[in-house]
C-alpha cells in the first residue's frame, strides 16, 4: 500500500501555512526568520514529493537550489539581525519602523 502524493502535498501546505502564520504573528525577528525557513522547507517538500510522483530528478534539483538560496538568505538575514540589535537594542521588528511614510 502506497501513500498518495497528495498527502505529501497536504503536509507541505500545512507546514507552509503554519510558517506564514508565524511570520505574521511574531514580532521577534529571529522567530520571523525561523518561520521563513519553515515556509522554504515546505516549498522544498512540495518539490520533492511532486518530483517523486513524476519520477523525475528535477524536483530534487530545485530543492538543492532552494537550499542554496536559504543558506544565503539566512546568512544575510542573521547579519541584519545583529545590526538591528546593535542599533535599537531590541529584536522587535516593529521598532525598526523608520521607513514609515
Amino acid at each position: 500500500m502506497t501513500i498518495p502524493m497528495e498527502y505529501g502535498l497536504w503536509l507541505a501546505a500545512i507546514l507552509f501555512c503554519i510558517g506564514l502564520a508565524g511570520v505574521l504573528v511574531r514580532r521577534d525577528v529571529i522567530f520571523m526568520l525561523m518561520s521563513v525557513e519553515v515556509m522554504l522547507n515546505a516549498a522544498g517538500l512540495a518539490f520533492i514529493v511532486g518530483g517523486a510522483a513524476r519520477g523525475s530528478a528535477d524536483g530534487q534539483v530545485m530543492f538543492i537550489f532552494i537550499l542554496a538560496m536559504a543558506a544565503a538568505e539566512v546568512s544575510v538575514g542573521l547579519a541584519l539581525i545583529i545590526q538591528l540589535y546593535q542599533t535599537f537594542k531590541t529584536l522587535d521588528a516593529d521598532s525598526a519602523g523608520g521607513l514609515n511614510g
Partner: protein
Amino acid sequence: MNILFYLAAGIAIITTLRMITGTNAVHSLLYLIVSLLSVSVIFFLSGAPFIAALEVIIYAGAIMVLFVFVIMMLNTGRDGVRKEHELLKASTWVGPGITSAILFGEMLYMLLTPSFHPMNRPGIPPAAVGALLFSRYILIVELAAFLLAAGIIGAYHLGRIEKRSHHRYLKKEEAAL
C-alpha cells in the same frame, strides 16, 4: 512504511506549531530542528535519500547552527522570554490565523482533485540529480554560486560591528565630540 510517513508528518506539524508559539528562542530552534529532521524522513520515504541527507547536514546542521550562534551572541536570555510573553497575546493571532487558514483551505481545495499518484516509486539515484544539475541546470548552478558569494560578502559586511555613525557627513562632528 506508511505508519512512518504519518508519524513523521504528525511530528513535523506538532513541532512546527510549538516552534511558532514558543517564547524561548533556543527551545523554538530545537523544535524547528526536529521538524526539519522529520521532513527529512519523508524525503527518505519518497525515494530521495540524497536530499534527506542534505536536509540533515545543511539545513538541520549548518544553517541551524548559525541561528544558535546568533542567539548566543545576542544573549537576550530571560528578558527576551518575558518580552515574548507580553507580545504573544491571543488577539494577535486572529488576523494571521484567519489569513493562513484561508490560504490553507484554498491550497487544500486545489489538491482535492480525484487523482492518485503513488508517491514512493523506486527512488531516483543521486547520480541522476547530479547529471541533471550539471547539464540542463548548469546556468542556475552558476547563478546559485553567485548568490552564495554575494551572501557571504553581504553577511560579512552587514555583520561587522563598528563605531556607529549615523551619517557619513556627521562623522567629523562625532569624532570631534
